[in-house]
Structures are given as structure tokens and as C-alpha cells.
């Protein structure tokens, strides 16, 4: 089975764990990172759209300032809710076109990077399940099996 060639150069994420970006709404300006517990998230007084892998979770907003840990807990709760209601991989605006190869690859990478980062911190790896569900939905099983073998052998072309 031909697997996609490694994309080069693999970009390492800005920090070891994936950043969950708060975007789209002009009122949300902070980037909340699970790996940066000292970050402070401000949720201005309006509906604030949180984008995770293309899905939008709306957090009803009042003017609240949360500490990094509380924000991370809220985010983890949001992800758990999304995982409970998961049907299939939602539309991801990073990959709007017909070619979804990169979508599969990126979610596979993100899951394993997330797991590695959470394990390094000793944190709960449950939020990483989102990436797992998405790549399971999109990636052919044979590709996943091959990549898992490469990782065990140490010949996996991606940067985890």
C-alpha cells in the first residue's frame, strides 16, 4: 500500500502541545494553550466562538477572566462534550478542497504529539481523543497501520 510521502519540511508546533485557537469572532483575541498554564484567557462580553479543528463550540459569555488552569479545564470539558456528540469528522476550514490527504496526516500527527506532550506533563490525555476520532474517520486503516509500524520501528517520517 502506497502511503503518502512525508511532507517536508514538517513544521513543529509553536509549543509541544497543540494550540487550541480561539478565532473567527473578532471579540475573541486570546490563544488558549493547554501547555501554557500561565496563560490568561479573557472572554469578552459577547458570544465567543471557539474553533477546534473546524468545529465551533459557542461559549455563552459574560465578562469573565479565567486563569490558565480554569480555562484549560473549561476547554477540556468542551472537548468532552464534543466527543460525546461526535458523529463524524466535521468540516475543517484548513482543508476546504477535494484533497483531504493532509487532513488525515495532520490529525494523525496532532494526536500523537498531543499524547506525547500530555504524557510528558503527566496531564489528562482525554482531549487528544478528538484528533484520534478525526483521523480514524478519515484515514484508511491500512495507512494508519503502516504509520503505526513506522513509529514502532523509529522510521516514521513525521515529527512527533
Amino acid at each position: 500500500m502506497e502511503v503518502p510521502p512525508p511532507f517536508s519540511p514538517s513544521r513543529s508546533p509553536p509549543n509541544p502541545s497543540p494550540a487550541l485557537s480561539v478565532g473567527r469572532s473578532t471579540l475573541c483575541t486570546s490563544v488558549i494553550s493547554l501547555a501554557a498554564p500561565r496563560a490568561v484567557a479573557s472572554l469578552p462580553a459577547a458570544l465567543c466562538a471557539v474553533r477546534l479543528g473546524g468545529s465551533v463550540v459557542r461559549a455563552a459569555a459574560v465578562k469573565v477572566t479565567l486563569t490558565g488552569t480554569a480555562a484549560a479545564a473549561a476547554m477540556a470539558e468542551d472537548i468532552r462534550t464534543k466527543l460525546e456528540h461526535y458523529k463524524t469528522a466535521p468540516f475543517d476550514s484548513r482543508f476546504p478542497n477535494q484533497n483531504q490527504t493532509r487532513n488525515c496526516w495532520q490529525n494523525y500527527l496532532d494526536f500523537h504529539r498531543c499524547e506525547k506532550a500530555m504524557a510528558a506533563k503527566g496531564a489528562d490525555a482525554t482531549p487528544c481523543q478528538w484528533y484520534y476520532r478525526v483521523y480514524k474517520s478519515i484515514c484508511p486503516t491500512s495507512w494508519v497501520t503502516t504509520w503505526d509500524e513506522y513509529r514502532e520501528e523509529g522510521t516514521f517520517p513525521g515529527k512527533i
Partner: protein
Amino acid sequence: MANHSQLGFQDASSPIMEELVEFHDHALMVALAICSLVLYLLTLTLMEKLSSNTVDAQEVELIWTILPAIVLVLLALPSLQILYMMDEIDEPDLTLKAIGHQWYWTYEYTDFKDLSFDSYMTPTTDLPLGHFRLLEVDHRIVIPMESPIRVIITADDVLHSWAVPALGVKTDAIPGRLNQTSFITTRPGVFYGQCSEICGANHSYMPIVVESTPLKHFEAWSSLLSS
């Protein structure tokens, strides 16, 4: 499926196919009008009824520039509208993976459990009475009707193409690449297609069958598959 000596499209069973059929009818009328005009002018020319002023013909030149431009716009607008409509991805309810091999398809439903099966053509010698030659398969794709379905198409070895004419879907299966398409079936039924990219000796013998059923039957089928 197509009937014997059928010239037209199969009955549209998805909104996109309905649009394509309408556009085809519209484009055919435009083509008929142009052909009629050309035939008429040709007849006049052969009967030497058309004068030919080779020096001053600005009016007719204006007409035969503007009119074709209008005709092209009349063709391009609905065409582009449908093209963009085909690329709209509503939030799908289900993701189905179709992997082409020489010479069969593998289908995977991995949103929840790892459901996977191969789909081989039923040989004519094993075909039950009344079934369709070279179109039936041993395991059909079952999907819930009236639900947006995302299909991810790829291939394991050489180029194939996953096509179901009644749903207006045809997408190449390319090794190392995941091509996404989507459709909604407007009614329950069984829809047939055939591999649409030459892939070797048995290219004609790896059909596709999509069975669209109400959701509860789909759930029953998937429970059966996973057990």
C-alpha cells in the same frame, strides 16, 4: 441502473444530479438552437440566397460577436453555480471510505467501530435469476437515506474511479491521495455504478452498489456487520 439501449441519464436520486440533469437539458436546447441556425444559414448559402458584402459588414459582425458572448454567459452561469454547489460540504452525518484495488473495492466505516469489508462483483455463473449482470456485488454499501454522506476515495495500487451516475458522483481513486466527495440520496433505493478509470484486465468487473435505506435499517445492518 441503465436499461437496454438507454440514451439519457438514469433517474436523478440526489439534489446535485437533479441540477445536472436540468443543466444538461438547458445546454442541449442551446446547442439545438445553434445547430438549427447554422443549418438554416447553410441552406441559404447553398441556394445562393445570401449576399456577401466583403467590404462593409459591421452590423452583422457586431451581431455575430455579441450573440455568441450572450450564449456563453447563458451556459457559464448555471455551470459555475452547479460546480460550486458540488463543492459545498454540509456537515456530513457519516464518512465512508472507498479504497480501490485490482479488482474490487474495500469500504470502511470507522466513525465509531472499525467496520470494513470487501466488495467483489458477483460472477455471472453465480448470479441469481433477475439480478443484473456485471453490476451486482457480494457486499453492498449501505447508507442512511436523506443524510449527507462524505466519501473519501483512494486506491491501493493503480488508478481507479468511484462513480455512481444516479447520484451524480464520479471521483478518481489515486494511490497516496484522499479525494473527498459528498452526496445526499433523496429516496431509498439501490444505485449502481462501475469503475471509471482503466485499471487492468478486470476494470469492467469491479462495480459499485449503494443501497440507501431508512436510518433504522442502516443501524440494524451496521450492528449486524459489527457482530
